[in-house]
């Protein structure tokens, strides 16, 4: 070991070594969590994050590849525990669980589990994970459940409770969990996976501290934060100063279907600082489409990160140049006991709107709007063998056209990164459904010089009685075009009953289905970018040949006639797509 390095721990070399190590540790935690988790929200949806925090609850490092909306926000959960127990109130072998609505601001399914990390008897930090449990008790069941109006109906709240105390399990708490949660085996399995991940993180961080001393690691980490901050400020400084505003609407809160909800944002750039002002957001609502303050912060941070440091690892330093103005009482800063079950569903729209506000300031870095919802379906019931089932799937949709190219089709929302749809074959193996169609949705991408991406189309046929929830949005302000591009086509759910009746539904909770009923989910396309008349006619023709744009739409939107009857329009008659 180089003596000089020991004496001056903040040399650039040690900083780089520590920088790489802390993220590798967080990634190792994520590997353990996702590989041994019991529910698809963790292993497919990646609805989790893992990280190392210091004794003030600040994020030292976070894993790569978790859900984008979890940005350096484990701190509030850990700080609550520090307040409760004091820094000397933790022992090696403690494991704390935390999902309190008021403190965490997210739906109760998001359970934070963390463990203190000791070196030579001294508390040096925490290893923490947050993961979405498939159930947490209460009346909510599956995605898109809109029927709660306060947080108490939404399940168990555990505020900084030690589920393990110095290695001894808290049997009382375990019993409460077992008796109050629907799929208790899965929840307890996830708790085990989270605990193991935290213990590994705590051990690794302890090893790092042993190697470079507590101060050495802290000095390196603060330099890593400073470097991230510097990089971010350079980007912000290049945006012209000014106050930029934009507005859009969420269709409704799922309760009052005729009452749109306002999403109004202002972005202020002043030198190297950005302020995102969410004061004019719609007030909190009666249903569960609310989040606590952390939801508003998450929206602002996702937009900010995408604009300023998409490639940097997530840590505290990435957000120092961002100020968020968010008074209490909005949909993104709801007062207790607001229901929080649908806490994240408005986020893609809020983020889209923040980006739109900046479109006039930095036009070549803002794409047109994307599909704008979280796009999931969920069915539950009891199959013919008497076994209860819960099917959940998440779909992609169209992303907006870009200043220099077409938008991506069938892609997860801005709030969902490496989230994967569930294979059709897997769904049919596990659940009583036949999936008749999984396809792109022609003509759904907004026309433009650069076309919006296409939504998807997915048809389920029920084989047994069940109930399902739908949660589509963004029809009042469809995925908008930019710079003269057209809007994308909005989402819709179409139910064809076995008796031939057809209903069109956007949001619904607990719809009853009978065998033979068909439900088709059509997700939105992205907005177009630029005047469609400027689109390269060869690209229009290629879109026609590939069946992404129909001849009629090509003529209508692009003024391109395709006389060549031989070009392959081999698209099967997508009866529903044509409606």
């Amino acid at each position: 070991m180089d003596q000089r390095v020991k004496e001056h721990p903040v040399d650039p070399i040690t900083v780089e070594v520590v920088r790489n190590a802390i993220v590798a540790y967080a990634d190792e935690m994520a590997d353990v969590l996702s590989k041994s988790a019991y529910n698809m929200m963790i292993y497919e949806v990646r609805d989790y994050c893992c990280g190392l925090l210091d004794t003030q609850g600040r994020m030292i490092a976070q894993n790569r590849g978790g859900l984008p909306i979890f940005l350096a926000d484990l701190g509030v959960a850990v700080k609550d525990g520090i307040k409760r127990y004091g820094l000397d109130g933790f022992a090696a072998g403690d494991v704390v669980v935390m999902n309190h609505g008021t403190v965490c601001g997210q739906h109760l399914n998001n359970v934070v589990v963390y463990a203190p990390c000791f070196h030579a008897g001294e508390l040096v930090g925490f290893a923490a994970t947050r993961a979405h449990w498939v159930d947490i008790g209460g009346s909510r069941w599956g995605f898109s459940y809109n029927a709660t109006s306060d947080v108490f109906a939404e399940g168990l709240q555990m505020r900084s409770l030690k589920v393990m105390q110095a290695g001894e399990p808290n049997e009382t708490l375990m019993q409460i969990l077992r008796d109050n949660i629907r799929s208790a085996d899965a929840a307890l399995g996830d708790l085990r996976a989270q605990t193991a991940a935290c213990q590994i993180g705590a051990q690794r961080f302890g090893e790092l501290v042993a190697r470079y001393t507590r101060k050495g690691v802290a000095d390196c980490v603060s330099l890593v934060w400073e470097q991230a901050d510097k990089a971010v400020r350079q980007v912000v400084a290049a945006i012209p100063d000014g106050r930029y505003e934009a507005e859009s609407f969420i269709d409704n809160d799922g309760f009052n279907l005729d009452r749109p909800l306002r999403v109004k944002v202002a972005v202020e750039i002043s030198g190297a600082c950005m302020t995102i002002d969410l004061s004019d957001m719609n007030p909190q609502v009666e249903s569960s489409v609310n989040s606590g303050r952390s939801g508003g912060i998450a929206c602002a941070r996702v937009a900010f990160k995408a604009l300023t440091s998409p490639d940097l690892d997530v840590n505290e330093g990435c957000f120092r140049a961002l100020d968020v103005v968010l008074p209490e009482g909005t949909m993104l800063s709801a007062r207790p006991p607001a229901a929080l079950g649908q806490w994240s569903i408005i986020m893609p729209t809020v983020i889209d709107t923040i980006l739109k506000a900046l479109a006039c300031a930095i036009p070549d870095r803002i794409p047109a709007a994307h599909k704008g919802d979280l796009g999931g379906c969920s069915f539950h019931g009891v199959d013919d063998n008497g076994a209860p089932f819960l099917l959940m799937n998440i779909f992609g949709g169209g992303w907006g056209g870009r200043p220099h190219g077409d938008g991506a089709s069938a892609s997860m929302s801005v709030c969902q990164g490496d989230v994967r749809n569930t294979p059709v074959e897997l769904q049919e193996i596990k659940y009583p459904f036949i999936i008749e169609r999984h396809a792109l949705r022609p003509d759904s991408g907004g026309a433009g010089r650069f076309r919006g991406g296409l939504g998807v189309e997915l048809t389920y046929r029920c084989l047994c009685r069940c109930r399902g929830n739908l949660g589509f949005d963004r029809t009042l302000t469809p995925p908008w075009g930019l710079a003269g591009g057209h809007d994308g086509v909005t989402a819709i759910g179409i139910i064809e009953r076995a008796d031939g009746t057809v209903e069109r539904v956007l949001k619904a909770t607990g719809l009853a289905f009978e065998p033979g009923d068909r439900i088709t989910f059509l997700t939105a396309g992205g907005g177009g970018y630029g005047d469609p008349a400027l689109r390269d006619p060869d690209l229009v023709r290629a879109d026609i040949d590939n069946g992404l744009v129909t001849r009629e739409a090509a003529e209508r939107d692009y003024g391109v006639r395709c006389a060549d009857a031989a070009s392959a329009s081999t698209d099967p008659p997508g009866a529903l797509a044509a409606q």
Partner: protein
Amino acid sequence: MNIVGVDIGGTFTDLVGYVNGELVTSKTSTTPADPTLAIARSLDIARCAPSELDEILHGSTIAINTVLERKGARTALITTEGFRDVYAIGRSNRIEAFNLFFERPRPLVDRALTFEIPERMKADGSVLVPVDERALERTIAAIDAAGCEAVAVCLVHAYANPAHEKLIGAILRRRRPDLFVTLSHEILREYREYERTSTTVLNAFVGPRVDGYLGRLEGYLGGADFTGQVRIMRSNGGVMSLRHAREQPVTMMESGPVAGMIGAGRLASLLGLPRAVGFDMGGTTAKSSLIADGVPAIETGYVIGDRATGQPMQLPVVDIVEIGAGGGSIAWIDAQGGLHVGPQSVGADPGPACYGKGAGLAVVTDADLLLGRINPARYLGGDIQIDPPAARSAMRRAIAEPLGLSMMEAARGIVRIADAAMSLSVRSVSVHRGVDPRDTALIAFGGAGPLHAMSIARELSISQVVVPKLPGAFSAYGMLMASWRQDFVQTLIGRIGELDATQVEAVFAELAEAGREQLRRDRQGAGTADFRFYADLRYAGQEHAISIPVEAPHQLAGDHGDLRIRFDREHARRYAQSAPDETMEIVSLRLVVTAARDDTLAERWLSEPFVAEGDASAGLRDVVFDDPDTPIPTPVLWRPALKPGMCISGPAVIEEANSTTLIHPGDEAVVTDAGHLVVKVAV
């Protein structure tokens, strides 16, 4: 027995062989237009007449390059009605989560060339809709009209019942014998329609080009009176017949980096090392793989190309973690003053600053040179003229001055960063499988591996490092030890304890028959073959499964107490927890068939007594180990002259033609009877 292995890389074609009891090697430039020319030349240079050879083992990047360059056949895809877009939709995930301009995998087949056929299987393998043969006729006409050379067929639930794929395949092959037809169930019988489609398309896309190339190779060898066997390297660490490679070229996709790991596996067995990490550091990357009981770890599923936009391939691949840290990795400073090493590399041209070609970029090799760890006079056997002043000036200008460090501090720092990054990668391959790195030995090879291995080992508290003889050529040499191998998989989903014994027996029997059939087709004697079954198990509710060895159907369908213990233990080892009371579930049954090599020439070389030649001592040189300002006068030794049994106490530099081994102060190296170095690292 005379055997040679020829590996065609992007730049060089390397040959290693064991001919008339002698080790032969040669290296020549790859000839992309007709790679057989380079093969002929490499045989010439090595003075090997094809007529005297019994076996040629061949690895090639042709399949993977065809994909990376997107220069494969015009390919059509046939799918089940309603599922035309499975391939374009993929899993809808965005790996680059915060990139508003993210890219996703670009299909290798246009939507216009993707055709739906009315037909449908259910998940249990029963028929929901029979094949519409008239629709198939129309599709064949459209494929003709589009001028396709290859067709991939991937139907929903074909893994459960391939009857419809077989029917469509038979019609296509009969009607259009010149089309290269790939049916998904012939490649893999595992659920997940997107990954299976992508794998099937990859095979079809590269098929005609690889088939043409291997045909030419066969023609050339036949013309040169070669009468032996040709074996093609595959990603799973085994080899297959030339005919099989022409049918399933997708299985040779990632064969390049695996040969060295096969060699490391054999060496681990010979030295009695139950757990080792193979570590291969070359010019651009460092590769690590866990080796348990002499076999490199296998992972199912891989992405061809980069992580965000590459093409998924759902087949077994030797699990190699590769990071951008090699001799040519560039040290650079970001806009905020942070120092980084790699992943960009200078490549062979312009090469490190010390090549004197004027790029002015400081790379790991320059740092090693300035620290006295590399001998400028003997670098790469003296073939390349080294220019130390150029390295010094690049180090100062690019790194030291901007950061306010001395030149030596900068050089030492670059090596520390690279070593730390490589140790994270070595650690990840072991902890990923629940193995504590301290319980492994590091087997280091590649041109730069032995130079960096001791610090990596120390970083991870690994107490033993093995440096095989000829570490620079070891990777290519590993190919000569590859066995015939074929992997089979069959989806079989159910809870352990509730499985139907007849069904389980049927799946075992079906896989075993497929294995025997493949042995027959590849003319492998069944007597030497080894059949191993694995059950992919998980706790009910989990997604990720772990492969656990099973011997017979009754372990799954009957008394499964022993399997239960094995699974719980493995789960606890990998994920630090287990749940012995919970229901266990099987997802797939796998079969790995291997056939041991008839000859053991290459393995014999690994263990045959080493005969030292020449004078070992080459003087003293100042080498920087830890303190950049205090170089240590270090003995320099010539490896070919080191006698078996010799002990070398660090510090020492052990040089040979294509590699340098650095023994740090406190470490002890011993030369084994076969000439390998076994280093005891002071941890």
